[in-house]
């Protein structure tokens, strides 16, 4: 079958897709986007987390056919996604005055979002998303296999909860397994990203 959907702001068409293929397989093997990882393919580890119409999902549990006409953001597009969100937030803050809690990404906003420039597809060139930079700075990356899924999940959490407690962070990231770090540096990274986000406002 043929599946048409949007990935990181770009319309994509995948041909000859088997009915049994997952979104994860199509991203990795058909669209050349291997950033989302294949660690358990059972929805237990969160390494394949992407946003589907704004909602974080395990892409291994989404059948490719289910994404027809929908919008997907992967780790490869996270930096540009975060940049445009920040720009939009700045505009809204300027026009509406104070805005303390971000409401998250509405479906319409998620669909309307477009990647800019040729680099965002490969994740090259541009600035990193704040959560990506925080993971590097805090030492939250070791082998890095869990990192893409954690970044997508943590970025989504900070969108909804700009000032999370430690318990909030743990709850939000409890679907993402990491075997290297013992999670402490991941906690540090999320706290760091939240603090920097707070400073920027």
């Amino acid at each position, binding site marked *: 079958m043929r599946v048409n959907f949007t990935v990181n702001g770009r319309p994509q068409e995948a041909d000859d897709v*088997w009915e*049994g293929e997952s979104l994860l397989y199509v991203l*990795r*093997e058909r669209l*050349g*986007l*291997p*950033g*989302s*990882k*294949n*660690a*358990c*393919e*059972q929805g*237990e*580890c969160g*390494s394949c987390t992407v946003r589907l119409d704004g909602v974080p999902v395990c892409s291994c549990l989404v059948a490719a056919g289910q994404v027809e006409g929908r919008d997907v953001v*992967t*780790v*490869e597009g*996270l*930096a540009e996604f975060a940049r445009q969100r920040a720009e939009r937030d700045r505009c809204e803050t300027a026009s509406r005055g104070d805005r303390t809690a971000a409401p998250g990404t509405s479906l319409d906003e998620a669909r309307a979002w477009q990647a800019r420039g040729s680099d965002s597809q*490969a*994740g*090259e060139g541009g600035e*990193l998303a704040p959560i*990506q*930079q925080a*993971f*590097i*700075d805090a*030492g939250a*990356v*070791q*082998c*890095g*296999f*869990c*990192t*893409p899924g954690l*970044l997508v999940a943590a970025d989504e959490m900070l969108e909804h909860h700009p000032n999370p407690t430690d*318990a909030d*962070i*743990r*709850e939000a*990231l*409890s679907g*993402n*397994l*990491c*075997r*290297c*770090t*013992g*999670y*402490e*540096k*991941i906690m*540090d990274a999320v706290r760091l990203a939240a603090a920097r986000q707070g400073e920027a406002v």
Partner: protein
Amino acid sequence: MPSPTSGFDRAGGASIGAPLGTPVKVTQGSRTKGGVGESTLRPDGTLKVTGEFAYSSDLWHEDMLWGQILRSTVAHAEIVSLDTSEALATPGVYAVMTYDDLPTDVKHYGLEIQDTPVLAHGKVRHHGEPVAIVAADHPETARRAAAKIKVEYRELPVITDEASATAPDAILVHENRDDHHVGHVPHPNIVHRQPIVRGDADAAAGRADVVVRGEYTFGMQDQAFLGPESGLAVPEEDGGVHLYIATQWLHSDLRQIAPVLGLPENKVRMTLAGVGGAFGGREDLSMQIHACLLALRTGKPVKIVYNRFESFFGHVHRHPAKLFYEHGATRDGKLTHVKCRIVLDGGAYASASPAVVGNASSLGIGPYVVDDVDIEAIALYTNNPPCGAMRGFGAVQACFAYEAQMDKVAKELGLDPVEFRQRNAMEQGALLPTGQRVDSPAPVAELLRRVKAMPLPPERQWESSEGADVRQLPGGLSNTTHGEGVVRGIGYAVGIKNVGFSEGFDDYSTAKVRMEVVAGEPVATVHTAMAEVGQGGVTVHAQIARTELGVAQVTIHPANTEVGSAGSTSASRQTYVTGGAVKNSCELVREKVLEIGRRRFGSHHPAWATAELLLEGGKVVTDGGEVLADLVDVLADEAVEVEAQWRHRPTEPFDLRTGQGNGHVQYSFAAHRAVVEVDTELGLVKVIELACAQDVGKALNPLSVIGQIQGGTTQGLGVAVMEEIIVDPKTAKVRNPSFTDYLIPTILDTPTIPVDVLELADDHAPYGLRGIGEAPTLSSTPAVLAAIRNATGLELDRTPVRPEHLTGT
């Protein structure tokens, strides 16, 4: 004992250096930015956070096929017939291979003993053993074709424990053994046996005021690295093959792969692909030979990626163990003797079992001084899953048992468990049971003091004004308690781990370092075959090169077999051994650079001949700080390159009867304090905090050091309360090969892990460093168990602890 130097806080901010006002002697690299001792960031960090870092499972090649392995559905059976015709006739299938298709007489491989068939020959010895391999143009086609292979098994009785392995009529797991251990083992179903006898334990037992005995069980733990076994084999025009692979040791793989393919080693090129964690599980081969065989057979690139289910069958696990201990002590709290017997289940193939036996026995009594010991460790051949290397490697199982014993003895004596440990703690100069003298700092008592001195987390938080947050209580979001039935316990443990390969192994590494001017700037390139598996070796190599060569820019060359062996990324050895090799090669490069400088500029300034010269900030300077020349001018268009091997001090094998011998290179010590809360009604455990104090010798990268300690601590927590591969004792089949059924700690299961780092230099090691990766995995588990015992009053002689062990239901 030297006085402890400054540690650094758990946030990773380094505070190492001389007090203000003290004159500092300038030595090579001491003023170089980004050098040794700084928390520089990973060179692969950006690639890893953008999704660009190419792990072995991400590789792709034009015309690539997918390989699939058919594995045995039973644990022990003769293969009566094997029919591949239907699989071969499946559209999209390019090749199906069995034992009969292997190209040479070499049909087995193994780390030490070549007992593992590339593909099963007439018999399978464990559940999930590879029987046939398939290559097809889609992974699903390959899977379905493999399922069409018809295998008829005639099942044999399964050997699952010591009793069944050594019974008089026991079937031999391996007939006709000819390895070098078979001559000294009491039964052919025992891979290796190592006794260690020192003093007279029986006589010493007579002096004991209290004698405590215990039997302990350690469950089978999985490394559970997140990146599945995978790789891409590309056939080459010269008839060879290029394998892109996630492994822990490229050259060890190469030595095992090439003979099976019938190729000389120079026709099997190996490049390290991105590795998604390892923890010992990639020390043995998995899909390497299979992918190469299919690539050479089909003439096309072949990629194999295990899924999680297959991964549980595709690598060795941590040896489960039965441990029998007797400790004696006098009223004044001194140990009189220790007797122990450690039975490790090695499963169907030897893997690293002999070396695991060596560790378990030689470190079997822990970091304590005991003159009279009688130790025996064995590893069995059974039909259980093969077991081999995992972080901690034999020392983990022993630590779980001897630390439980230390608590029991302390209780018998009415002593504080930390105080009792401190009275018997090893110090520098102590003798191990092997007779080897510990000739570097051994701050066992100090680590215990430090970990005990850390502030305790507040109690009964559910009674605070904010009320209960179920996320911080046993049962968590299952909302099973708001504090009722919950009791707190605190437990301590300390351990000793050897660093590097022991028992006479020639444990060397190789580094090629090149220095040249690129775009007007001096640049060092470091090329080793070290497997970066996440530990941060590449970060440290760049730091060492900066320190030794005084440059800002360091390029880390991809790891491959074009350079000599780096040895394994295991045994906490890479920063020591490959770090040592990089340091050594940098020093040789530095000498050559200075020679060039003397040749070109020696006549310009007398200091070239008389002063101690350093490379700093891209310049040649005197130790007084005077700049003699710019490296750009010294090198001009010349490149200086050195490839050299480097070795630590040699070790000796242990005597096969007495276990005496200078078998180890270095030791690593860590202590833990666990604070747990237990819902005694439901048997649920919440680890509230797991504090660690560790001596790291010298933290080359404090941020990475703390990351290693926290990660190792968490793996120890996992096997304390949740992680176990369940093998059915009747069928020897694995019952929980998935992340749904084999649980590893989530971020909700993992507590805060405050770390106190001690830096007492080991003068034998580069920069005084200690290998650090494994020690925190040892004492974490027994500390958690001790805390649960403290909370519940239960004996708890097995790990992991399950709810039924706490509720008795």
